């Protein structure tokens, strides 16, 4: 019997789920290998659990979602989080450094209708996660690899090394060394295929911190190139800003008078 797959969404932009639908070359094979039982983004035919595999996109930002993720966990043999929101809290975790009621007042015409937690947190802060797939958005080939590994009963093979290795493999010249372009690649986990440096830009750390990333080492280099600590902290506080390694280093750097200004600008 084919494994039953479900795809759930929490606080997110849907981009990671779309990566699955974007995997056009593989989509029919995926549909042939898995029983897609619950995937509201793709089909209105929704079947109840339990599921063999749950792909979870998005972070936990409401009390309701904090309850719902427990139900998802109870219904899933294997729970895999996909994307920066689900694995690190996402861009919306910027509110963890601020007063979230300020954001609500700034954005919504009728703030009193909004009931939300003060924080945006990754799924693993709430329930046990069997595997985390990083990226903003995830890489569709990595997602296929995870699905393949499930079908084959082996561990998914996703790298935990720096983006630099992928730059060198594709022949991209280091933008940090050759041009002084601020780049987070040396401390960022590979996964996208090192796209930005191939287009003359520094890495934005969409896949979060690499294993044992030496943040202080890299930020010292960026500072020696003239980047101000507040600006460096800001560059770490993006899609994966709440991932522990980035969070701790940005807090260390921002621990001065420009902290609030820089973060909220």
């Amino acid at each position, binding site marked *: 019997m084919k494994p039953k797959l479900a795809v759930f969404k929490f606080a997110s932009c849907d981009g990671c789920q779309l990566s699955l639908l974007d995997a056009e070359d*593989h989509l029919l*094979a*995926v549909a*042939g*290998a898995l029983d897609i039982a619950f995937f509201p983004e793709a089909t209105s035919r929704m079947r109840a659990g339990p599921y063999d595999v749950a792909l979870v996109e998005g972070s936990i930002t409401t009390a309701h979602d904090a309850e719902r993720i427990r139900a998802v966990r109870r219904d899933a043999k294997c729970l895999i989080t996909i994307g920066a929101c689900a694995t690190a809290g996402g861009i919306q975790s910027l509110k963890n450094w601020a007063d979230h009621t300020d954001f609500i007042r700034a954005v919504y015409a009728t703030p009193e209708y909004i009931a939300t937690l003060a924080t945006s947190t990754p799924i693993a802060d709430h329930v046990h996660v069997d595997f985390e797939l990083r990226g903003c958005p995830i890489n569709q080939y990595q997602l*296929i690899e995870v*699905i*393949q590994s499930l*079908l*084959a009963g082996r561990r998914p*093979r996703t*790298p*935990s*090394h*720096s983006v*630099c*290795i992928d730059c*060198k*493999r594709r*022949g*991209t*010249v*280091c933008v*940090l*060394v*050759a*041009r*002084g372009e601020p780049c987070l*690649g*040396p*401390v960022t986990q590979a996964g996208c295929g090192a796209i930005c440096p191939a287009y*003359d830009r520094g890495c934005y750390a969409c896949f979060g911190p*690499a*294993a*044992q*990333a*030496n943040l*202080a*080492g*890299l930020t*010292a*280099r960026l500072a020696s190139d003239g980047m101000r600590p507040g600006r460096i902290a800001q560059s770490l506080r993006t899609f994966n800003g709440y991932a522990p390694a980035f969070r701790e280093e940005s807090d260390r750097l921002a621990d001065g008078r420009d902290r609030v200004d820089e973060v909220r600008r």
Partner: protein
Amino acid sequence: MNGHSGADAGQRFLHKDRFPCLLEQLEAMGYSVIGPTLDQHAIVYDRIRSVDDLPRGWTDEQQPGSYRVRRRTDDAWFGYVVGPHSWKGYLFPTPVVIARAAREGGDWEFKEADDAPPKFAFLGVRACEIAAIRVQDRVFLAESYVDPIYEGRRTRALIVAVNCEQAASTCFCPSMGTGPRCTSGFDLALTELSDGFVVEVGTAEGAALLATLDSSEASISQLRAAQAARRSASEQIERSLDTRGLRDLLMDNLEHPRWDETASRCLSCANCTMVCPTCFCGSVEEVSDLAGGRVERRRRWDSCFNIDFSYMNGGHVRDSIRSRYRQWLTHKLASWNDQFGTSGCVGCGRCITWCPSGIDLTEEVLAIRGDAPVSEGSS
């Protein structure tokens, strides 16, 4: 006095106007010419189809952690040192498919990769790079473990070396005995003058190639100019690495506090190993289609700085940046000798330039030598 003395005897002069014939001849002989070209704000190695592809009038400035291309005041064609690429990108390519398997009915059919090795002519190979190719020859060709992908490319390759006429601040080839002058390991070796090249022949293939070109006997003044040009490279080299007792120095100091200090700066990003012309590590993985009926075994460059590179059942063997940096430096400068009978370092300085933190292995050795416990080589 008539004629030329010693090593300069028999050298030829190829005018720059005639240089396109060299490229045409190589193409006619079936070679893909790979050489220096300006791309991505650097001088990299790529396909050369005409002299216009060469980085004419450009040079590089290198410091620990910094590389910049600059305009030269002259129109030199090979007036740079070494860039971020090395020839291993062509001899030891990444990624490559090394085997395939397919399930037909109930049976698996295994196939070797149908590798048709390209025929490369490498143009602009530096002395340190010839040394690096020799180091990789020992790794990939020596004794019983021959790598067919490397072998196919290496045995077909033609090397047109170009002597350095300047040095970067990161160069230390004399310390490693690899340069700056190209003395062997090439088919032809060129020394650039303003109007042409003094050409030395290294092999019969090189001689045959040169015979097809419209060259003339090099004059005494051309030979002297070439000597002076080569000497200026030697004179510019500032950096050095004291290799006396180096193997034992490092191996006797595996718990030196310097490793901790370096680990605080090392990003474990692997840039040093990726740009190193001798680093040869790769990882092999099997990639299948979703149905599991077709599998490719692929090899890609990998690095001892990748935490997963030492992953074995039960955990990571080198589970800290300190242990990974120490592994790299002690392998490169010490255990490489035990393994292959040479140093793993050729003194090209790439690992210094392309380290985002500017970690300089010559300084690391100096630091360990400086206050090392009593061992051979320290006084």
